[in-house]
């Protein structure tokens, strides 16, 4: 500011000086010389003013450029950083496309390749039970016990989108077994081909997953159904699941073979199939959406083997109440038929099944067609209001004490009856075998969350026939009363 003021003062002063000098004409040579000198001074001052003005402008210009350069420099740096981030994101997205994915959640531990051609999931099932036989007076052979009822790592997956697999070994009870080992090609939901070892398509209760049965043990109806078998099966769901079908050819499994085998020991083959209808499954009639009914069955012809005979029909407490006597062979046709139905509506669940197992047996040249029959009806009510289903219950409010959430609670009840053909007695039946068993059960299931369940139940089985002190007599001579508990982890 001061330099500006100085310049203006000099300039104005100079102008006045020039004007003053111009008005006064020189009178003599001395004055002329003085005037000339003054003019020169003024010109010098004028030049100095110009120089100072130029200098001031230059200084201002110089003061602006460093800021501009700095800003441009910073602008470039920011652009470079943004571009690097962009390229890193592109590279990460490209890398992600080739990286396998890992998932851990309530349905297990899963991993899949980036292109989803290989997907595998590890599930698990652990059932830690107790059985307590009460009021048996020491008469039954039932032992009070804690046991690991099932301990299964379950490997499932899909390869190349259309091929599903399942491998399930079991380490529970006292044996190690392969329960499931199969490959399923699903061309589409309507047409699938399964091969390997898996559940035979006959009994309704048998086909329900071990995780979701109402009670610790399936009812005595399932004593007549085949367990897992090895074979090939065509199956599918038609009309959006309103009709399900399964038809296959298998090695053939006896009635309730608790321990399954991995190969056949005879030339026999069994045919098994099932149709199941849920006509209102996708309808708007909510009350009927959960109604399903159908029929399963099997047929085979056995030739003088005892491996196709049941090792025994068991009570809920897993005690044999009927076995075939030594020397009995399956020798002829063995057919089964099982009409079955269930109904689920809100918290209500109902299930019913009737099963006939008709088998020709021979002992010592004497043959008979033995037709054993069984039926059961079971039901449950989820008192906390969740919907019941064939595939389990999901609590709306998983157990969490801090949040005052108590999971889902379900009361359950069942009645079952198994009748042995009278023609089995006395030749074909072990001493003390009962001709009929009737069992009723009540229980309470607590679903803490989708993965953990605790249940307690009581079962009472009474017998007709049997008794005595030999063979199965100690078991069948009085009712069996068992209290069950279970803690289950399934994921």
């Amino acid at each position, binding site marked *: 500011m001061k330099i500006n003021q100085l310049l203006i003062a000099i300039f104005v002063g100079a102008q006045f000086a020039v004007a003053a000098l111009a008005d006064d004409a020189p009178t003599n040579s001395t004055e002329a010389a003085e005037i000339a000198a003054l003019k020169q001074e003024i010109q010098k001052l004028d030049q100095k003013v110009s120089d100072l003005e130029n200098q001031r402008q230059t200084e201002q210009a110089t003061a602006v450029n460093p800021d501009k350069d700095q800003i441009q420099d910073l602008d*470039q740096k920011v*652009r*470079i950083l943004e571009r*690097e981030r962009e*390229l890193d994101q592109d*590279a990460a997205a490209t890398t992600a496309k080739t990286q396998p994915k890992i998932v851990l959640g309530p349905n297990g531990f899963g991993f899949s390749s980036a292109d989803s051609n290989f997907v595998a999931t590890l599930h698990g099932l652990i059932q830690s039970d107790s059985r307590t036989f009460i009021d048996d007076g020491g008469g039954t052979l039932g032992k009070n016990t804690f046991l690991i009822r099932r301990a299964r790592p379950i490997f499932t997956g899909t390869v190349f989108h259309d091929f599903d697999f399942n491998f399930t070994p079991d380490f529970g009870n006292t044996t190690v077994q392969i329960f499931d080992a199969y490959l399923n090609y699903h061309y589409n939901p309507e047409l699938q081909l399964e091969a390997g070892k898996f559940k035979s398509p006959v009994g309704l209760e048998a086909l329900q997953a071990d995780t979701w049965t109402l009670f610790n043990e399936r009812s005595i109806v399932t004593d007549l159904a085949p367990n897992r078998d090895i074979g090939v099966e065509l199956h599918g769901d038609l009309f959006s699941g309103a009709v399900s079908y399964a038809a296959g050819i298998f090695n053939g499994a006896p009635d309730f073979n608790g321990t399954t085998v991995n190969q056949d020991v005879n030339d026999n083959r069994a045919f098994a199939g099932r149709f199941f209808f849920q006509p209102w499954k996708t309808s708007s009639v909510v009350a009927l959406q959960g109604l399903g009914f159908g029929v399963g069955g099997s047929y085979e012809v056995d030739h003088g083997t005892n491996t196709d005979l049941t090792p025994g029909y068991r009570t809920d407490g897993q005690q044999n109440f009927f076995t075939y006597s030594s020397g009995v062979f399956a020798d002829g046709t063995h057919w089964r038929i099982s009409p079955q139905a269930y109904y689920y509506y809100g918290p209500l669940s109902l299930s019913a099944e009737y099963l006939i197992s008709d088998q020709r047996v021979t002992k010592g040249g004497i043959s008979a067609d033995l037709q054993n029959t069984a039926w059961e009806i079971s039901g449950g009510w989820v008192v906390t209001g969740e919907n019941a289903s064939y595939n389990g219950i999901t609590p709306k409010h998983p157990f969490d004490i801090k949040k005052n959430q108590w999971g889902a609670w379900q009361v359950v009840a069942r009645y079952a009856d198994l009748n042995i053909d009278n023609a089995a007695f006395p030749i074909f039946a072990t001493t003390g075998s009962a001709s009929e068993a009737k069992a009723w059960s009540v229980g309470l299931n607590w679903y803490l969350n989708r993965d953990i369940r605790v249940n307690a139940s009581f079962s009472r089985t009474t017998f007709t026939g049997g008794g005595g002190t030999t063979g199965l007599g100690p078991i069948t001579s009085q009712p069996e009363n068992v209290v069950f508990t279970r803690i289950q982890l399934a994921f």
Partner: protein
Amino acid sequence: MKTILKILLILSLAVSADAREVKLLNVSYDPTRELYTEYNAAFTKYWKAKTGDDIVVSQSHGGSGKQAQSVIAGLEADVVTLALSYDIDAISQQAKLLPANWQTRLPNNSTPYTSTIVFLVRKGNPKGIKDWDDLVKKGVTVVVPNPKTSGGARWAYLAAYAYALESYGHDDAKAKDFITKLYKNVPILDSGARGSTITFSQRGIGDVLLAWENEAHLTLKEFGADKFEIVTPPLSILAEPPVAVVDKNAKHHGTTEVATAYLNYLYSDEGQEIAAKNFYRPRNEAIAAKYAANFTQLKLVTIDQEFDGWTKAQQTHFADGGVFDQIFQPQN
């Protein structure tokens, strides 16, 4: 007359009944999108007229090195049109998808067109960039892709190195020093030539882009000559991007005949015109003369002259631990 017409109708129906659809996959390097869009349309029209068959050409573009690795890893290209012969050699050696002598199967060492590396600068050339020496000055920011993945980047690196060799009496130490200074001015490495073009032209980074000649012209076309200008250095490298049928894939797909015809057509007059229109230097001398105005004359050195071929150049400069790894330190 009616009889003749009926016969012709029947014959044409017979031909069309036999017409089939053939699918080809062309795996190419980064900046050839526009070239092959135009070329594919021309070839499919030609082939349809010749045989009645419909051709569907799918394109894949990316850094030449990356593209070669994709084909080796299983991308089932029927033909590859990459930036340098070394990348196609890698496909032959590592995946055995085509024979080692693939380059002798088509004219001009299987390179139907050539190109070179030029400078693309901002309009007005504010940093006064005229030659390779200007790229090593302090305050000049150079944009160029990563020579580990991009064929164009390898050509650009070798062009700069060749300039240094020519300038410093083929003194490798001085040339290495020169290239070190140049890459000190490189703040960011895209994986391919197109990425670098985006960095320079759209993201506004850098003072100069070392670009394929065709890419530089395309950028001017797209963004306007009021934003950028091309500076052709007095010396650059003769880039020869080769083409080849991937024999095993073509045989597996049943496309050998069509794939061979597809590449042969690049040498036809129409193919050469399309190349020239897209700023690739055609091999056909008559067409090159016709489009001479598109291409500045400059001294072009070859990779054989300066570097004893691609194998030696790749090993010396771009292999792990090579000169590029020794001299390049990322900025920021």
